[in-house]
């Protein structure tokens, strides 16, 4: 009793402590009194609390209540975490709690121990419910998950307008005035500004993932206008190549790939539309909040657009094991994948830890995990036809007219087979299964729900299965029409489609779902999906189902602000949505609320990381307690507010970053401008190796081979190695990346959100660069070009070569070394004994240039 009382006290606010003691005394005396005098108006503290504390809380108190249900929190009475309300406000007769108190349910009678409640007490509770379920929030508030960890606090938004670059600050050493903007107020940048060749190359590799052309370099070097740098930045940000480069960063975070993963690893031939969506989003500087909304809830947004739908490719990028015969696990794995990716990408939290247990270090519970997951349970990744009239018209014009009728005919034959199949499955069900399945969803208990879902899966049948149920009479017709459809599909383009995430429960649009590929694809059912409910999986075990949970966001972030508006998901049996806003739209709105402490911080930190190699928070996917502390917390918050104030403009933040003195510093240290080595001083621009894609694209660009057209279907597996398109467009098969991408730490399995690439250095890199056909091909073409442009003069050749490959003239040492190399190699060959396909001296030289460290460095 004493410990229980202490717990009760802990549950109450400090203000209320005294009154609790008072009430506890009252409780004691109250127990001996006859029925209390009936007050005209109920008072929670005076009338209800004593009954609860005396008769309910023995088993229903606190977060670890022995019964699993706590009755000391108002929301829990309303079923917040279990999904099963115990009271219907205003309707005590229909309230579950009254039902069990009155003994109307033979299975459960409450209290479980001791005497039943006195009729007067029950009457009092009924009145309490009927009168509006008045709760004294001050006396017994909902406990808050609190954390003083920096990342969960609202960020400090500095007042004032958007930052404009400030000019004219003199350095102490009296050197040329260097441009500076507000970022530099947070960071003491000490090095001199890099020279103009370095700057244009840095900017170009960073913003476009490609080196600048020789002409661009010379033009920029010669441009003496004071704002020439800012103009260059604007030009680069407006280049379509910018979107390609920055899309790849986001695709890492989105764990996007073009095959299903796992052992089956079927291709997703239309997943490229999401890649193009990301490219276009960066190029159009789509507000980041909209970018988030489309990706999280594109299928729910009004009005319908193909673009919104394609954006859900983020969620759909989950791996799916189509060989998984355990459909329960198959669906759960997909949901886990999506939940983890969403938490990693937007919240910067390692929520995956909470899949099996409460997070060890962050204030995130398993319940939080499954509440977030519950936003996704009524949907799934699936191929869906697009509606763009242009696409459709083009498709229809190239498709034989009998195609549509053939499809309809096939469908009607399959439908009769499906009925056969359905009947047979139904006959095979056990009594328990049948009764669970026939019980309306809202009346099922946990076990029945589990059974019903399993039964539901039995009714799923692929076309291959249904094939066996086609009647003898229909067989010739079916085979004929099937063959004809196959022929048409072989010879004419596939229906315009893409791989999306779609919930028939929360999407107001009825989308045209196309058949899935794979042996055992994730079953899609318009009828079954709306019945899905989120639930805790005990210790992460898919077959160990815990309490049902409603969709919701991590409690620790709720401390900053609550999810606005109605968030409960209501749908009728027919899958029609009644209450707005829908599930994931609410999640997306919450994520992009300007008060959200994480979304903007996480995003600007990623941007910073991609520009400098390391984020202000070095662990860009972990803003939790064990993640790195921000090196410049005020700067992080300032950038986050800049993002929001500029209408979530990514380009605005990038413009701020790349025009800062901090970014424009030389990568080698010059004379320090400050005698005071402040904390947070940045001495130089941190050089780093460019990513696999940039290296490959750069080699192609330098050779003049790069094909520049944007977007479209990926280059097929067979043609990847010989393709001259940007690496981004080479088919992204999981576990089987293009060779350079795989070798140089590019995405491979894409099994989870990748916050930052590794940098490996191995002799296999050197072997690839020197012996693989790819670099050689680039070298030979480059040599040809140099010869064409420079003629036979070696000095000119060498000069041009350096400017083409490294955007700068050679130093004296380098110039002499190149000359010596060419002279020696030419001398060796003067004997005329060379083999027919022996490389020329210039080709050898170009080949060396393709392997230079400097070529793959962001200086």
């Amino acid at each position, binding site marked *: 009793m004493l410990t229980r009382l202490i717990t009760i006290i802990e549950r109450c606010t400090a203000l209320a402590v005294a009154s609790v003691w008072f009430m506890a005394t009252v409780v004691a005396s109250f127990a001996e009194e006859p029925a209390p005098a009936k007050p005209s108006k109920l008072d929670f503290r005076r009338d209800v609390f004593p009954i609860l504390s005396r008769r309910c809380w023995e088993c229903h108190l606190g977060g670890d209540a022995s019964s699993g249900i706590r009755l000391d929190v108002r929301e829990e009475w309303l079923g917040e975490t279990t999904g099963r309300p115990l009271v219907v406000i205003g309707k005590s007769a229909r309230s579950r709690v009254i039902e069990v108190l009155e003994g109307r349910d033979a299975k459960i009678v409450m209290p479980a121990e001791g005497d039943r409640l006195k009729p007067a007490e029950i009457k009092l509770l009924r009145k309490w419910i009927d009168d509006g379920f008045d709760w004294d929030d001050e006396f017994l508030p909902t406990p808050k998950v609190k954390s003083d960890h920096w990342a969960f606090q609202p960020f400090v938004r500095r007042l004032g307008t958007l930052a404009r670059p400030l000019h004219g600050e003199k350095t102490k050493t009296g050197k040329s005035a260097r441009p500076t903007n507000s970022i530099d107020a947070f960071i003491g940048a000490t090095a001199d500004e890099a020279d103009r060749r370095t700057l244009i190359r840095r900017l170009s590799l960073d913003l476009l993932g490609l080196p600048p052309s020789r002409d661009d370099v010379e033009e920029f070097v010669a441009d003496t206008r004071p704002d020439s740098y800012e103009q260059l930045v604007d030009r680069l940000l407006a280049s379509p190549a910018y979107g390609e480069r920055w899309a790849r960063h986001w695709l890492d975070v989105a764990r996007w790939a073009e095959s299903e993963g796992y052992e089956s690893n079927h291709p997703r031939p239309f997943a490229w539309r999401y890649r193009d969506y990301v490219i276009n989003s960066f190029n159009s500087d789509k507000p980041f909040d909209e970018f988030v909304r489309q990706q999280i809830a594109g299928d729910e947004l009004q009005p319908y657009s193909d673009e919104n739908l394609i954006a859900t490719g983020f969620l759909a990028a989950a791996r799916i094991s189509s060989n998984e015969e355990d459909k329960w696990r198959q669906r759960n794995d997909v949901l886990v994948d999506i939940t983890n990716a969403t938490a990693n990408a937007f919240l910067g939290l390692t929520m995956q830890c909470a899949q099996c247990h409460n997070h060890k270090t962050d204030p995130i519970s398993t319940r939080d995990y499954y509440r977030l997951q519950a936003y996704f349970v009524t949907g799934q990744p699936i191929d869906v036809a697009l509606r763009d009239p242009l696409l459709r018209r083009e498709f229809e014009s190239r498709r034989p007219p009998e195609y549509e009728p053939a499809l309809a005919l096939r469908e009607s034959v399959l439908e009769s087979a499906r009925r056969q199949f359905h009947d047979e499955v139904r006959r095979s069900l056990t009594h328990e299964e049948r009764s669970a399945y026939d019980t309306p969803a809202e009346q099922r208990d946990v076990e029945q729900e589990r059974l019903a879902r399993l039964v539901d899966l039995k009714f799923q049948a692929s076309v291959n299965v249904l094939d066996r149920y086609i009647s003898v009479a229909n067989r010739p017709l079916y085979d004929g029409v099937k063959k004809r459809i196959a022929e048409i599909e072989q010879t004419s383009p596939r229906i315009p489609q893409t791989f999306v995430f779609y919930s028939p429960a929360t999407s107001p649009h009825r989308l045209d779902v196309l058949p899935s590929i794979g042996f055992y694809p994730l079953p899609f059912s318009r009828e079954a999906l709306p019945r899905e409910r989120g639930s805790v999986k005990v210790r992460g075990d898919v077959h160990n189902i815990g309490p049902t949970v409603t969709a919701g966001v991590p409690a620790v972030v709720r401390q900053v602000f609550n999810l606005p508006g109605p968030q409960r998901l209501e749908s009728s049996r027919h899958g029609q949505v009644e209450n707005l806003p829908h599930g994931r739209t609410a999640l997306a709105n919450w994520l992009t609320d300007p008060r959200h402490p994480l979304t903007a911080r996480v995003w600007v930190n990623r941007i910073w990381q991609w520009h400098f190699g390391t984020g202000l928070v070095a662990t860009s996917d972990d803003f939790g307690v064990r993640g790195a502390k921000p090196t410049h917390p005020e700067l992080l918050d300032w950038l986050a507010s800049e993002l929001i104030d500029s209408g979530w403009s990514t380009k605005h933040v990038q413009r701020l970053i790349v025009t800062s003195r901090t970014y424009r510093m030389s990568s080698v240290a010059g004379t320090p401008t400050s005698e005071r080595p402040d904390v947070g001083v940045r001495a130089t621009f941190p050089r780093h190796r460019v990513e696999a894609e940039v290296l490959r694209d750069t080699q192609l660009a330098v050779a003049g081979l790069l094909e520049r057209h944007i977007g479209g279907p990926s280059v097929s597996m067979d043609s990847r190695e010989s393709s001259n398109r940007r690496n981004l467009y080479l088919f992204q098969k999981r576990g089987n990346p293009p060779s350079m991408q795989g070798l140089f730490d590019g995405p491979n399995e894409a099994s989870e959100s990748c916050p930052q690439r590794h940098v490996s250095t191995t002799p296999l890199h050197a072997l690839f660069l020197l012996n693989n056909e790819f670099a050689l091909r680039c070298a030979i073409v480059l040599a040809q070009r140099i010869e064409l442009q420079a003629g036979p003069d070696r000095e000119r050749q060498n000069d041009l070569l350096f400017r083409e490959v490294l955007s700068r003239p050679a130093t004296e040492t380098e110039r002499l070394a190149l000359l010596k190399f060419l002279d*020696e190699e030419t001398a060796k060959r003067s004997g005329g004994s060379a083999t027919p396909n022996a490389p020329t001296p210039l080709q050898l030289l170009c080949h060396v240039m393709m392997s230079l460290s400097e070529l793959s460095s962001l200086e």
Partner: protein
Amino acid sequence: MITRRSMLQRSTLGFGAIALAELLRADGRLVADSVNRSAANAVLRPHSPATARSTIFIFQGGGPSQVDTLDPKPLLQELHGKDVPESIGKGIPKIARCPLNNLLASPWKFRQYGESGIPVSELHPKLGHCVDDLCVIRSCQHDSPIHAPAEFIATTGTQVGDRPSLGAWLTYGLGSENSDLPGFVVFKTGETIRPPAIGTGFLPARFQGVPVDSEKGIPNLTLPAGFTRADRESQLRLLEMLNREHLRKGRAELQISNFKSQITNSDPFNSELEARIKSYELAYRMQVSAPAIFDLSQESAETQTLYGLDQKETAEYGRICLLTRRLVERGVRFIQIRSGGWDAHSDIEDNHGKKCRAIDKPLAALLIDLKRRGLLDETLVICGGEFGRTPTSQRGASKPGRDHSPSGYTTWLAGGGVRGGQIIGKTDDVGYAAIERPVHPNDLHATILHALGLDQHELFYEHHNRRELVTVNGGQVVQEVFG
């Protein structure tokens, strides 16, 4: 701007190097040594004395049948065509595709070999003579009857296929003893490789297994057509000169800075550049020395015959096994030989007959050859599939075959401190399920680590703030293996 943790992660080869890392941290040479660390003089303090230096993992993809090779079941012969007796059937885990009806007798006879008298079937007449070196675990067991997940359990510890493969872990943990060769080599034999089986999961890409074609060798190892060695050497001289010039430019200007200490810390890139310069040297050494390794004409005629290079049936595995010995001699840490095609759903007599005729002699030769060169003592050899096969007959097969069965199957180990001539564990009387001393693939992983002197709880990699272990799902060292 690299945190110390990430620095350790990126630059060192794991636990053994932590002590070294501490030393290096003092003078900022840490990252520069990332390539050195894979060289022969890698600092390593094993957690316990190692009994093995290298590991050879012969992976029999598809799943060889235990009751036809190393786990004879007289009762199976008696009950041919009948159902599994209920007394045995009730002990067999209920797993999809593992029916209890229609037992299938083994078409092969067994006989006892060696001093230990361990029975081996006619499929392995040569291996039979090595039986006193083998530790035969008859009670391997897990619960996935599907190829890929089961293979991932065998090679990565979990069935998902997204964790580092064992070879990657060991290369991360121990490095390679030979700077001219990759630490983790994979031999292909026609079948496609399931990438996770040789992948690095969350470990850096450099620990990836390098697939080697037994005919063509390491990829990108040959000069492009028309290139001479002299061409390449002058290329490398120029390349090194230019790369050093690039490195020097960064360095020279550092000297004049007043903030030297800060700058040293903030630019690990110079070290990475140094590592890259070094990697070209290593690559070239690899290019020069590796082809010699693949030149088997240097081996005596006796050795070539021992491995069966002279016979068409055994030539491919003979080459692979002989190359494997040569790689072990040169300090390669982990070699995975992929021997696929054991998936005998129908006509097991033909399937296993052919497979064993191809592999029996080369396998025995590998063991004999390692032993006579004194290498078997320091080389751990493991051979087994992702699961075994059902003692019952495959339903609907045109000629008798067996389905997948993970409930009780055989894996053998040899060398590297293993006590040979012993049998561990037992299956039931028809050879369906392990009934004594079940050994999970995770236990095997712990055992392999142990042989290499690694404590499964100490070899870790920090990922998402979690100490990731090889044996993430547990696993116990099978101590009896070492006798």
